[in-house]
């Protein structure tokens, strides 16, 4: 019935780059050999033209593997060329942006399957309205305008009725008293005001402050970029929220079902004499058998939940344990759509079909949790040590309870993180901060899932499937095998244990097998130290255009500009003046701490004022003494080794630092490397405390490095940079191999996100001492006397 009815027909599929659309195209190609032609409505995207999208986004999908296997690569290409055609259609434009040729094609269609949609529940309001609602309306208008009268199969969702209870009939939507045109306008026009709102001084200031707090030391451009990113996110979040609130207000759980419901209204209102069928699938999940068991694309609704369960992220979940969870395998939906497409309504009254399992093969929430428990007990996910993760046992509290719990925990964690990030402890709190951020992520994700999907587990309705079943009755036995769409045909245990859960795990690329390779042997023999950076150095050995650039303070030496200053000043003044000097320094401490957090450059500028009026020659001498007394004592032996490795490999080595020439140049001289550091202006034979050029911090550091590279013909993409703080970010970003050495909390996070190497270098133990000269030493006494 189905293959025959569709044989010789030309069909148009919208949304063919999506999961469902692709599945429909595949099934048609494979199971309806007589089909005349399948037109794929594809819009050229900014990156690729429509034809290329067909190749890259549709035909290369695993969905076609089975066909390719049956026909061979060549046979498949031939088939695709014979049957498939691209029609450039842009549902975002009135008239669909059709060319004359496109219009011609449209007119030639016998069936139009509209499966294009923005299916995420948390899409911004305007996107959902445009794609789901206006897209459908525009399609119908365009069909009418072209004069064609194809059978239009509109794929909707079972949840268009909002949060109903009891039996939901297969009927055109009740009129909720809403005007879809008006709703579309409201939602579409939301973006303007939200964008505007995002630029309001108080919002922008707040975002800027946040960006500053996160990226401050990395320099103005980095802060600006972050601010803009935050603003974009803020706008998106606001639009999502506005959409959700709007949908909730209209009695819907989310923007998706709301816009889909409006779309049904629009289609029903506009279709005129175009035969219209509406297919309402419930929650579509991986295919049971076709094209292969477990065919799924993109993470949809249940997958994040299932993984969260397996990873024990979601320790509990809200919902009614006996609520029906209406899940339907994708291939059943495809078959339903094709069966509907093959059976156009005889009159102008639209027909509605529920592709849902609830009435024929009910699945309850508790069952899913139990199945997941069984599955993940047998095939547990693994943590990063390769250990099996236990599964939670859900108690199903109410959504309110659980959300409150999660929110409280989140707040506590955020507060702790705030404190930790502000402690002036540098690399020492990195681990703690990373842990907190992981915990926050976990809570955030959990809360999100609860907010998004919680409502679906409280739905207390059954979707009527009488229309679908009457199609099923009509289907001859032979075709029933080829196009199964009766949900009673399969068993949920089989579906979950053998099809769906394995698919979800496979797609998440989570480890379930114990780690490959050997088990730990238990050998305590020392293992050879391996560093990927060292092997990178070896690979680029002998290349003069490779540069290794090192920050100094905190990266090569455990000091900062303050300690040097203290040491040099104390060295030059008699013991009895020390206390008053120290008291002066302490008083200024808090201000410096604050400046340091805001911007490294500002801090350095402010601190170097302390040098005002000092004798440059004396200070230079003291700087040389500080080399032995401070620098070499606090040096990281591993850093020295690394520099020598670079030199042995023939690389250029550059120390790029905001520290003063007084203290860095002696070290650079000893190391025999180039140095770029801060210089103080000298006037009338005295230091002024003003810098000759802006301190090389933040973006200035990046600019310096670029300038150096172009002057010396350095290949930055092959080069190395070592630094410890966020203010070095622009420098690290420029090179091919950035290494975060003893990163502070913020840089550590950044390095983790970007996959940079993180190394921890330590001072040789037993060398830390206060940056104070020994007041008993005759050398000191003599120096003071002089």
């Amino acid at each position, binding site marked *: 019935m189905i293959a025959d009815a569709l044989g010789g027909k030309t069909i148009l599929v919208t949304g063919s780059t999506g999961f469902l659309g692709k599945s429909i195209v595949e099934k048609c190609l494979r199971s309806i050999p007589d089909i005349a032609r399948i037109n794929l409505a594809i819009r050229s995207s900014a990156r690729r033209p429509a034809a290329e999208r067909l190749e890259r986004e549709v035909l290369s999908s695993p969905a076609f593997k089975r066909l390719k296997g049956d026909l061979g690569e060549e046979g498949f290409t031939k088939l695709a060329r014979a049957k498939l055609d691209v029609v450039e259609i842009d549902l975002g434009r009135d008239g669909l942006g059709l060319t004359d040729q496109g219009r011609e094609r449209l007119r030639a269609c016998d069936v139009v399957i509209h499966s294009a949609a923005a299916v995420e529940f948390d899409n911004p309001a305007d996107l959902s309205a445009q794609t789901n609602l206006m897209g459908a309306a525009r399609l119908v208008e365009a069909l009418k305008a072209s004069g064609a009268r194809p059978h239009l199969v509109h794929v909707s969702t079972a949840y268009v009725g909002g949060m109903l209870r009891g039996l939901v009939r297969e009927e055109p939507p009740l009129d909720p008293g809403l005007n879809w045109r008006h709703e579309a306008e409201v939602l579409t026009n939301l973006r303007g005001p939200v964008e505007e709102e995002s630029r309001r001084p108080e919002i922008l200031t707040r975002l800027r402050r946040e960006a500053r707090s996160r990226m401050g030391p990395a320099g103005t451009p980095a802060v600006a970029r972050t601010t803009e990113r935050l603003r974009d996110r803020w706008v998106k979040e606001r639009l999502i929220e506005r959409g959700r609130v709007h949908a909730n207000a209209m009695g819907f759980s989310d923007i998706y079902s709301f816009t889909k419901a409006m779309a049904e209204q629009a289609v029903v209102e506009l279709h005129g004499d175009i035969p219209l069928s509406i297919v309402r699938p419930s929650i579509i999940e991986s295919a049971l058998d076709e094209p292969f068991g477990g065919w799924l694309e993109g993470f949809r609704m249940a997958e994040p939940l299932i993984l969260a369960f397996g990873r024990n992220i979601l320790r509990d979940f809200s919902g009614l344990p006996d609520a029906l969870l209406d899940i339907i395998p994708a291939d059943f939906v495809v078959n339903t759509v094709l069966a509907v497409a093959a059976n156009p309504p005889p009159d102008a009254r639209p027909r509605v079909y529920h592709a849902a399992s609830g009435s024929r093969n009910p699945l309850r929430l508790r069952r899913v949790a139990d199945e997941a428990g069984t599955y993940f007990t047998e095939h547990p996910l693994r943590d990063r040590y390769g250990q099996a993760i236990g599964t939670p046992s859900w108690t199903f509290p109410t959504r309110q309870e659980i959300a409150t719990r999660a929110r409280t925990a989140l707040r506590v964690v955020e507060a702790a993180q705030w404190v930790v990030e502000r402690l002036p402890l540098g690399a020492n709190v990195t681990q703690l901060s990373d842990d907190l951020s992981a915990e926050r992520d976990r809570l955030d994700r959990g809360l999100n899932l609860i907010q998004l999907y919680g409502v679906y587990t409280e739905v207390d309705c059954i979707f009527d499937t009488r229309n679908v079943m009457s199609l099923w009755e009509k289907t001859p036995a032979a075709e029933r095998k080829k196009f199964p769409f009766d949900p009673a045909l399969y068993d949920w245990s089989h579906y979950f244990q053998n099809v769906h859960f394995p698919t979800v795990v496979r797609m998440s690329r989570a480890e379930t097998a114990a780690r490959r390779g050997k088990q730990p042997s238990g050998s305590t023999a020392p293992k050879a130290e391996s560093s990927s950076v060292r092997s990178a150095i070896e690979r680029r050995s002998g290349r003069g255009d490779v540069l290794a650039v090192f920050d100094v303070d905190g990266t090569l030496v455990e000091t900062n500009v303050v300690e040097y200053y203290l040491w040099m000043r104390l060295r030059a003044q008699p013991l009895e003046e020390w206390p008053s000097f120290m008291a002066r320094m302490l008083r200024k401490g808090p201000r410096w701490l604050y400046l340091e957090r805001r911007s490294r450059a500002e801090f350095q500028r402010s601190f170097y004022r302390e040098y005002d009026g000092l004798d440059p020659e004396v200070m230079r001498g003291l700087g040389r003494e500080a080399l032995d007394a401070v620098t070499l*004592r606090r040096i990281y032996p591993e850093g020295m080794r690394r520099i020598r490795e670079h030199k042995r490999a023939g690389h250029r080595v550059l120390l790029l630092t905001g520290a003063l020439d007084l203290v860095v140049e002696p070290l650079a001289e000893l190391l025999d490397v180039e140095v770029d550091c801060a210089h103080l202006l000298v006037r009338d034979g005295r230091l002024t405390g003003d810098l000759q050029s802006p301190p090389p911090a933040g973006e200035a550091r990046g600019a310096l490095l670029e300038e150096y590279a172009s002057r010396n013909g350095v290949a930055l993409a092959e080069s190395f940079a070592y630094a410890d703080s966020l203010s070095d970010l622009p420098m690290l970003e420029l090179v091919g191999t950035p290494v975060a050495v003893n990163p502070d909390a913020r840089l550590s996070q950044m390095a983790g996100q970007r996959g940079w190497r993180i190394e921890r270098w330590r001072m040789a133990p037993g060398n830390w001492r206060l940056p104070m000269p020994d007041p008993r030493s005759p050398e000191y006494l003599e120096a003071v006397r002089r």
Partner: protein
Amino acid sequence: MPRPGAVIEVDRNTPPVLFHFGEGIRLEKMPLGARIVYPPDPLEPIAHPERAIKRALAKPLEDDPLKSLLRRGMKMTIAFDDLSLPLPPMAAPDVRQLVMEEVIDMAAEAGIDDLHIIAALGLHRRMTEDEVRHIVGERIFTTFHPDRLYQHDGEDLENNVYVGKTAQGEEVTLNRRAAESDLVIYVNLTLVPMDGGHKSMSTGLASFRSIRAHHNAKTLLASRSYMNPPDSALHQSCIRQGQLIEDTVRVFHIETTVNNHAFPAVANFMQKRETDWTPQDQAMFLATKQMTDIMPPAFKRNVFHAMRAPYGMTAVHAGQVDAVHDKTLEAVRKQINVPVEGQTDIVTLGVPYLGPYNINAPMNPILVVCMGLGYLFNFYRNKPVLRKGGVLILTHPCRYEFDAVQHPSYIDYYDEVLADTKDPIEIEKKYEIRFAEDPWFRQLYRKSHAYHGIHPHYAWIWAAHAMEHAGDIIFVGADRDVVHRLGFKCATTLDDAFEMAEQTVGRYPSVTHLRTPPIMLADVEA
């Protein structure tokens, strides 16, 4: 008349014996029947050192009186031993100061203007100004520093000259100033028989090129021990080099020796035998023990390193190197030799806080090995107190601690070389040149206060003989990870160490405890 050294047997009435334990001390009960070897008491020092010095200069051995060697307008150089001697540093005035002041006065009288004073530190670290000042005294320092009083630099290509090759093919280099001088006066302080003689010039004013001729695993394994020059391949080699130097430059050697009065009055109990402890010593011991048990290492180090030894000069000789050195060795022997009958299965040793290479610095693990298995083990004549294959037990906390300024190359040696192999010969093959020629270590040696890049290797091979001789080596109370990195065993208490030793030497081993420092040399009967 000071008592000679003694060997006593532990019986029921023997008090527990002192073990040095880094910057700390332990009192341990030795098993019954074990023997304890005590050093001789300090010899009476010479009452008037200045007069003795004058006398020695006026009547040198096998050489003309110094005065007759001095001529107006001559180019003269004084070289002196660096601060690795004596240990602990001597309370001011240092004997070297006394000798140098005398020599300089004579030179001034003779009208010599071109006089340089060079610290003969070989591949040791440059001393700080304070340290140089302590050795030469305020007067010399202010007069000559920095232009005419400076430190030898073995990596200064300009200022080291190649002298030639010995009959055995050992290359010899010498400080250029010394090589070009009309007269070189070497002012030495000999604390142990290893020092002095031809070794002074041939290592102190040399470079890696000439020092590697004898500072290598093969030579050291053939030196049994290097504390007894006639049996030491190291010294044979130094003598050959020294003779070549003598043929090139006119050298006038002045050698001094001091007694073994190593500890000041506050630490008198360390100097004395436990049986002699007075109530005052007991109290000092208790106080020191309490303090060192609870204080952080850095603080203890400051206290211990501030100690200055009240050494007294016991001899001074001047003249031709060999003649002088014979007399010197005789004087040293008189102070430190203790006759010991036969070897034992186990030898116990306390490793103190100080060795020649960690003045004002922590004794890092490699230096602990150098001190315990190198110097202390090698204080013997004829044969070691420990029988071949016996167990050596040492006490030292062996913390993972390095002085970043003085011992940068030690850190890399520990982290990289010892993680790879511990065999001195293999290390020498793989790493000698790399460490010796590392440009960074070379810079630190020349410009900062770091030991030469190769120095950790020398410290390590100093113990080669002990590592080869002992069947097992156990550290008591040490950091376990460190001891394992060094390739030895670790015990928590001395009793545990004895238990562990049973596996090697059986149930009832013979035991000797060498109660040192003060320094002594076990003269084991053949």
